[in-house]
Every structure is written in C-alpha cells, then in structure tokens.
C-alpha cells in the first residue's frame, strides 16, 4: 500500500472530507499559515477559498463559540488549535457550552464540532508551549477524545470526527508528523472508541496512545532481545475507552504498564488504573500497575531537563523490567 507521512495523512483527510461534505469547514488561527500547523493544511486555501478555510484572530474562546454556533446551524466545523496550550483560553466554550449543549436542552440540537488540538512540545519551548492536556477533556461529560498514533489512524479518525454528530477532541502530536505509514488513497474512517493491539505478547501489557505508542514499540523491540515478550496496545481513543480490549490483554499477561504523555495525577494513566481496579479483571493482575507519564511538573525549557522530563522507550524498558521482577 502507498506510504505517506502522518502530516500528509491529515492533509489528505482534510482535502477529501471538505471536498465531499459541504457541511465541513476548517476554522482556527493559522490555518492558512505556512508554519503554524506544519504542512497539514497545505493547498486547502487555494482549493476551497476563505469561505471554507477560515483563518481567524487568536480569540480562542470567541472562535470556539463561533464554531459551536455554526455547528448548531448545521455545519460540521473542524476547529484547529495549533498549540493545545491555548485551549485553556477556550475552556468556557468547550466545557460549559459545547460539551453541555445537547444534554442541557434535553437533546434538541447537537454540537458536531471537531476540536483539533495539536501537541507541540520540545525544542526548549517551556511550560506554555509544551502541554498535553488530554486528561482534561476526558474528564468532561459530552466530549469524546481521540489520539491517533499512525498515519492510517490520523486520517481515518479525523474523517470519523468530521462525520460524527457530537463533539470530539482530536489530539495529534507534532512529534508524529514525519512518521510514515500505509494509508489508503480513498476516504475511509476509523471508528471512535476502538483500540488496537499493535504487537502481540504474553509477558506484559504496555498500553499507550499517540506518540507514546512508538516509544512502546521501540521498547518492545529492545526487550525482545532479552526474550521479554511485550504486548503493545494502542487505545486510539481515550473516550470512549476500549476497555474490553484492555481487559482481555490484562487477563492474558497479568501485568500492566500504562504509558501516557500527560501528567500523572488524575491523568490518563490514573483513569486506566481505576478502570482495572474496579473490575473483576483486577484479580488477574499478578503485580501492581506501573505508570510511565510526565512527572507532576511544568515543562522545563532547558534541553538538559527536557531529556529527562518526557517519557520514552528507555523509561518504558525500565518499567517493564521492574514489573517482571515483582
């Protein structure tokens, strides 16, 4: 099959879904800029014009409300936040308005908004240009959260979001943009809420999403040399969470390492741990769970600190070895 990069897959998804569905349009700060969103929006403004590719002032809260209003009136906006740190400015419209809208009015209108949130970290960008806040959005009823790791899923899940009748937070990571993988040329979608086993194994389950899946696979390849057989699971969606797939794997291996690119406290790994702990699958665990995530610390600038701040294959290898010693 044809192989393209993650960034190209997003670009292709946008081209195809905007061409196919007159309800879909792209809005947000920098969507016509050559640098804000990488190469993901290339060619869109020339092809579709300013009516459907709407570059905006920063005004994150206002523009998020605008996207909601357009959705109520029948559109399916894809709203881009080139750095998800800036979504804090829009939390009122996201949490109070978009997420509540369908429920608060007894199920009258829904809010089919895709909130495209880009994690853009590293490079000594420090605390306000490095955050991965997926857990915030998981916490809010009425929102769904997807975190594709492969070019195939990036395209398929973005299309699924645009076709969906409800709000979804689509989170990608600039560290993934150059990764290459097989992507069909035609339009297709990947179902929201379905995880996938990336590598089968019997000794330990490593569950991850987004960029952390690559680090987990890298770790599993190194561990294979030590005859440690790791099962790598990519949840793909954080909400709804494919807990049955997770439970099946945990039942098989009895050991679980959770890897997440966000903070530990009340984070993705905390939620997954809790799902295991409150289910009968808990009895299958032969050791405590280990979590590999960010420490509860803001992102530092210095490269020297960045190197030890972010989770990586090395930390996953350490965690797997540790859990097998338990």
């Amino acid at each position, binding site marked *: 099959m044809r192989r393209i990069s993650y960034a190209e897959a997003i670009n292709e998804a946008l081209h195809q879904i905007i061409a196919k569905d007159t309800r879909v*349009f792209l809005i947000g700060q920098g969507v016509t800029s050559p640098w804000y969103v990488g190469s993901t929006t290339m060619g869109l403004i020339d092809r579709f014009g300013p*009516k*459907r590719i*709407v570059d*905006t*002032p920063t*005004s994150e*809260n*206002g*523009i*998020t*409300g*605008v*996207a*909601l*209003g*357009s*959705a*109520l*009136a*029948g*559109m399916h906006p894809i709203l881009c936040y080139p750095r998800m740190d800036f979504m804090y400015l829009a939390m*009122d*419209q996201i949490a*109070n*308005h978009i997420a509540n*809208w*369908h*429920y*608060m*009015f*007894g*199920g*009258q*209108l*829904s809010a089919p908004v895709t909130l495209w949130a880009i994690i853009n970290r590293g490079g000594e960008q420090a605390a306000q240009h490095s955050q991965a806040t997926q857990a915030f959005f998981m916490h809010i*009823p*009425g929102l*769904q959260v997807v975190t594709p790791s492969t070019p195939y899923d990036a395209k398929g899940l973005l299309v699924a979001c645009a076709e969906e*009748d*409800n709000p979804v937070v689509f989170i990608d990571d600039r560290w993934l943009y150059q990764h290459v993988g097989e992507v069909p040329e035609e339009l297709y979608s990947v179902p929201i809420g379905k995880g996938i086993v990336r590598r089968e194994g019997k000794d330990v389950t490593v569950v991850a999403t987004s960029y952390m899946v690559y680090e987990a696979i890298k770790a599993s390849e190194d561990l294979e040399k030590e005859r440690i057989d790791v099962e790598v699971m990519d949840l793909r969606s954080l909400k709804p969470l494919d807990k049955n797939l997770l439970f099946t794997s945990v039942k098989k291996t009895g050991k679980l390492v959770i890897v997440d690119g966000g903070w530990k406290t009340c984070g993705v790994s905390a939620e997954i741990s809790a799902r295991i702990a409150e289910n009968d699958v808990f009895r299958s665990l032969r050791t405590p769970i280990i979590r590999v995530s960010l420490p509860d610390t803001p992102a530092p600038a210095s490269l020297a600190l960045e190197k030890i701040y972010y989770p990586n294959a090395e930390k996953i290898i350490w965690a797997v070895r540790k859990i097998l010693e338990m």
Partner: protein
Amino acid sequence: MKEEEKNLPPSDIPQDILRKMYVAMVNIRKFEERVAEILRSPKKEITTPCHLYIGEEAVATGVCSALRKDDWVFSTHRSHGHFLAKGGDLKALMAELYCKKRGCSKGKGGSMHIASSDIGLPGSSAIVGGTIPIAVGAALAFSMQDKDSISVAFFGDGALHEGVSYESLNFASLKKLPVVFVCENNLYCTHLSVAATLANPNIYKKAEAFGMHGIRIDGNNVMKVFKVAERAIADARAGKGPTLIEAMTYRWFGHVGPYDDLDKGLRSKEELNYWMSRDPIKVLEKFLLEHGFMSELERDQIHKAISEEVEKAVKFARESPYPDENDLLHNVFKT
C-alpha cells in the same frame, strides 16, 4: 440620550404588529408575575433560580417582532422573555421551570437553559456573555449556507465585562456577519451598578472600536425598539454587517428571585418608582388607546385570555411527570 432622538417616529408600524407586540408583552408580564407568585409561595413548587424579565419586556418583544421565524436568537440566564417573544410555548416554559419532563428542555435545563430549536431559539447560557460568540457562529453558518437568515445575541450589560464579548464583536464585524447584538442595559450586573463596573458605561459606543454601528435606545418603548431592530436586521440581512443596540431598561425585581431587594440597599425606591412609571406595557397601551388601535374592552379581554393561558400552563406543569432515572444518562450524546 442624543442617539435616541434620532429614532424614527413609531407611527409607520402597522397596527397589527403594534397589537401583537402588546399581546406579547402582556404575555411575558403575566407569565413572570405568576412565576413570582409561585416562587414566593411556601410550597416551593419552583426552585430553579429564576431571573425575571418584568420591566424589560419591550426589548425582547420589539426585537423578536422584527424577526422572521427562521431567524435565530440566543438568550441568557434571563431567558423567559426571549423565549416567549420568539413564539415559545407557555406550557413548555412553565413545565421547564417546574423541571418536569414536559419542559422545553425536558427538565434538564431549568430556568437558565431554555431552548426551542423549532422557533429559532437554540439555547440560553448561564455563563455571562456565553452565547454571544455562538450567535456569531450561527450567522457564519447562515452566510456559508447562502441563507438570508440572521442571528441575534441578547445579553446584559454585565456581558461587557467578559472578554469573549469583544472577541465576538471583532470577529462579526471583521467578517460582516448577519448578526445583531442586543444589549439589555438594565443598569445592574447582579448587585453592582453599571457605573461601578464599566470604565466607559456608554456601551453603544464600544461598537465604534470594532467598526460597526452602535445605537442607544429607550428600551422601554417597544415601538422604538422595533424600528431600530428592523433597520439593524435589514442591514444584517443585506450583508452590511452587525449592529450593536444598547436598549436602556430596568428590571423591577432583584437580580434573581421574586423580590425587589430594596431592603438590600443596592438601589433606591425612587429609582424603582421612576422606572415603574415608565412601564413598557403602559407606554404602548397608552399609545394604542389614544390612537384608537385598541379599546379598553379589548385590552381587558387580552389580559383575561392571557391569564387563562398562564393558568393552563401552571396546570400543565403541575401535572407533568418528573424526569426519571432513565432520563439521567440520556442525551449526553446524540445517538
């Protein structure tokens, strides 16, 4: 009030519209009076926080009477008047205040989250200024869809304390969107006066900063509201961009609940008396009677008929079931 003087005389408003506006205002008044009565009763039939619209009826009525059914309005925590003026069902509104299953929001919204998408009121927000950008977004959609519908954002003077209102004015004017901003300046944001909260209390003048037309009007004169709204709506529909209307008005009750709150020392009895002497319903009633557009008998009939409808709404609300356990988890997502 110089801007106000420039308003066109009301004489060219068709008689049937004047009469309809009178009925609409009395409808809101009688509904709200009945709600206040229920709120004051020890039976506690209504406990959802109600922000009553009494005294401000001319604003919602004047604006909504100049709209088409396929135009949209977005409302606030003080939502009952907008809902009724846009043609919302009395029974569904009363049942929502009772938080019953037959309420317009199925008992999940309460007083501050009133909506009826089929009449063009897709929602009301209890977050101050919250629906202003959403109204702008609906206008953006209408323009993308090549529809000639327009969208109205109702908000209070307190919404001008919120940054999102300025983001919205800027974007709407930048893109020349078909939206009308209607600020109901009732002189108070909860307990604080406009003078205590806005460095420049001339709200209509803020329009100039965004390159749009702003106008201050007497919000207690429904005929003036109608004329100014009609013009702003026509401009929006014609692609000339948004207008900011500042309608000067006053709420007779406190920020929330069924009492005037004079004992709290936040405003004076004289101030309230002044505004009650400028009762928007009396202003139109006097005009209609003086011009022979309505007889006293007709007026009494209108009042009686509306009172009966309000009683039917109370009965409907009382008899409606409460939402049950199955409803709790339903409607989080559209299925």
